[in-house]
C-alpha cells in the first residue's frame, strides 16, 4: 500500500484530533466525579447567564433618573433585594454588576495568564542568562506588595490617560483596573509555568525535535505549550478568583467607575451612603454574596482541576 504525502498528513491530523477528543472526554469524566468542582461550574454558569443577558432577566439598567422605588426600601415582592439610597432596585444593580465584574475578571485573567505563560515558557525553555534575568524581574514582582503597587498605579494611569476616554468600547477607568491587575499578578503564574516547562524540556520528544532542526519558537509552540496548557488552565481559574477579589477591593476604596458599577463599586456606594450603620443589610449583603459565590466557585473548580492534574495529591485526600 502506498500513501501519498497529503493523505498521510490528513490521517495524522485526524488521529491527533481523535486523541485530543478522547483526552478531553476522560478529563471531563474525571471532573464529573469532583462534586465540589461541579457545583462550582453550575454557579459560574448561572452568573455567566446574568453577565450575558442582564436585560432579559431584570430589565434595562436602572440609573439615578430611572429609579423604580423609594430610598432604602427593605426587600419586598416588588423589590426582591430592596432598594439603594437613590431608590434603584438592588436586584437590577447586582445582575447588571455581574457583567462588569465578570468582564473585568476575565480580561484581567487573560492578561495575567498571557504574560505569565509567555515569560514562564521562554525563561524555562531558553534557560541561562535569559532565565536568570526574567526570574529576577519575576521575584521583584513577587516580593513587591502588589496591591499597594496597584493602588499607586491606578490613579497615576488615570491621570495620564484621562478619565473619560474609551478604548474598544471599554471605559478607560475599567481598563486601568484590568491592566493594573494584570501587571501586578502575572509573577506567580510565570513561576509555576516555568517550573513545569523545565521538566517538559527534558523529555525525549523535545530532543528529537531539536535533532531534526526545529527552531526554538517552533518547539515552544508545538512541544512545550501543549504540555503546559492544562496547568495554564488550572492556574487561570484561580487567577480569575483573585482578579475578582482585587477588582472588588480597588472599586471599594474609590478606584472603580461609578457609571459602570461592579459588585465592588455597589459595596462602595453602600459604604458611602452609610447603609451598614442604618441597618440596610440588603444593600451590603446582595453584592457581597455574589462576590463570595463567584470567588468560591472558581476556587472550587481550580482545586478540582488541581486534583485531576496531580493525582498523587488527590489520593492523599
Amino acid at each position, binding site marked *: 500500500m502506498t500513501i501519498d504525502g497529503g493523505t498521510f498528513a490528513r490521517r495524522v491530523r485526524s488521529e491527533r484530533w481523535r486523541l485530543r477528543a478522547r483526552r478531553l472526554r476522560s478529563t471531563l469524566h474525571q471532573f464529573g466525579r469532583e462534586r465540589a468542582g461541579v457545583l462550582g461550574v453550575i454557579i459560574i454558569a448561572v452568573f455567566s447567564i446574568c453577565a450575558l443577558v442582564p436585560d432579559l432577566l431584570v430589565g434595562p439598567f436602572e440609573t439615578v433618573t430611572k429609579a423604580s422605588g423609594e430610598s432604602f426600601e427593605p426587600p419586598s415582592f416588588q423589590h426582591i433585594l430592596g432598594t439603594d439610597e437613590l431608590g434603584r432596585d438592588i436586584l437590577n444593580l447586582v445582575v447588571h454588576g455581574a457583567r462588569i465584574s465578570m468582564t473585568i475578571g476575565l480580561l484581567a485573567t487573560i492578561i495575567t495568564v498571557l504574560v505569565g505563560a509567555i515569560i514562564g515558557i521562554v525563561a524555562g525553555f531558553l534557560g541561562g542568562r535569559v532565565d536568570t534575568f526574567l526570574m529576577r524581574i519575576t*521575584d*521583584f514582582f*513577587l*516580593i*513587591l*506588595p*502588589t*496591591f*499597594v*503597587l496597584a*493602588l*499607586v*498605579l491606578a*490613579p*497615576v494611569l488615570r*491621570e*495620564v490617560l484621562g478619565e473619560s476616554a474609551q478604548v474598544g468600547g471599554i471605559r478607560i477607568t475599567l481598563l486601568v483596573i484590568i491592566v493594573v491587575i494584570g501587571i501586578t499578578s502575572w509573577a506567580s503564574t510565570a513561576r509555576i509555568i516555568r517550573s513545569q516547562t523545565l521538566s517538559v524540556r527534558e523529555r525525549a520528544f523535545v530532543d528529537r525535535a531539536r535533532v531534526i532542526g526545529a527552531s526554538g519558537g517552533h518547539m515552544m509552540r508545538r512541544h512545550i505549550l501543549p504540555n503546559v496548557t492544562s496547568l495554564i488552565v488550572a492556574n487561570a481559574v484561580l487567577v480569575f*478568583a483573585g482578579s475578582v*477579589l*482585587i477588582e*472588588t*477591593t480597588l472599586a*471599594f*476604596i*474609590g*478606584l472603580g467607575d461609578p457609571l459602570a458599577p461592579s459588585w*465592588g463599586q455597589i*459595596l462602595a456606594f*453602600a*459604604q458611602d451612603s452609610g447603609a*451598614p*450603620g*442604618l*441597618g440596610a*443589610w440588603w444593600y*451590603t*449583603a446582595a453584592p*457581597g454574596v455574589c*462576590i*463570595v459565590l463567584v*470567588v*468560591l466557585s472558581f*476556587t*472550587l473548580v481550580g482545586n478540582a482541576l488541581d486534583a485531576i492534574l496531580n493525582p498523587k*495529591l488527590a489520593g*492523599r*485526600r
Partner: protein
Amino acid sequence: MGSRFLLRRAGQAFLTILFVLVLNFILFRSLPGSPERILLRNPRISAASLEAQRERWGLNDPLLPISVVIDDRGVRLEDFPASLTDNQLFSYLVATAQLDLGLSFQFRGRDVADVIGERMGPTLLLFGLGEIIAIFVGLGLGARAGWRRGTASDYLGTGLSLVLYSMPYFWLGMILLIIFAAELRWFPTSGMVTPGMDYASPLDYVADVAWHLVLPVATVALGLIGQYSLMMRSSVTEVLAEDYVTTARAKGLKESRILRHHVWPNALLPAVTLIAINLGYIVAGAITVEQVFSWPGLGTLTVDALRTRDYPMMQGLFLVLSISVVAASFLADMVYGFLDPRVRT
C-alpha cells in the same frame, strides 16, 4: 546561620527597596506637568515654602543622571553629565534617606513623614493583634483538619475556611458591623475612642480602645484564619504522606507524639513562607477594614489620600508599606533559615 546566606538575602531586600524608590520616583514624575503642577496647584502652600520645595527637590536640575533621546534614529542614551549627583532622582533618594517625604496637601502642608508616623500605631495595634490571633487559631485549626482529614469536622472546617477565604475582608467587616454594632449595639460602629470622652484613669482609656478594637480585630483575624487554616491543612496532608511519618507509626509511637514531633514542625515550614508572602495581601485587607470601621490608621489615610489626590502622601505611603512588606519577607527568610538548615546555602 551562614553569613553568606544572610548577606545575600539582605542584598536582595535592599535592591528591592531601591527598585521601589526608583519606581516611586518615575511613577509620580510621569504625571502630566508634575511635580510643578502638583506643587503649584496646592492652595495651602505659601510662596516661600514653594521656593524652598523647588530648591530642596532640585527641580531646576535634570530628571535623571542620563537623558533618553527618542527620534527617528531610534532610542539612544545621551548627555552624560559631569556629576552623577546633580539630578532630581539623586535629590529624591537623598531626601527620602533623610525621611523627608514632602508636604501633604490635605493636611495643610504638614510633613508627610509626621502624619504617617502618627497613623502607624493604630494600624500596628489592629493588625498585630489580628495576625497573632489568626496564626494561632488558623494554624491550629488547619493542622487538626489535616490530621483528621475526611471526617465530618474536617469537611465543615475546610468548607468554612474556603468561604472565609473567598470573602473580601471589608465585606466581612461590614456584615459584622451590621449585626453587632447597628442591630445588637454591642460594639461601637467607628473610630478608636469614644469622641469627647474624659477618662478617669489610663485603664479606662485602654478599656475604651479595647471595646472599639473588638470588631475590627475580629474581621482581620477571621479573614486570615480561613487562609491560614487551608494552607496548614494542605501542608499537614503533604507531610503525612512522608516516609518518616510511616516510620514513626511503625515504631509504635503515640499519635499525639507523631503529630507534635514529626508532623507539626515540618508542616510549619511552608507556612512561614506563605505567611510572609501573604503579608502583601494583608496590606490590601488592612486598608479596606480600616475604612469600614473608620479606624484612624494607615489604611484610612491611604483612602483619604486617594480621594483627595494627595500625591505626596500616596508616594510616602507606597514607600512605607512596600518597605514593611519587604522587611517582613526578609525576616521570614531569616526565620526559615533558622528553622530549616537545608536552605542556608
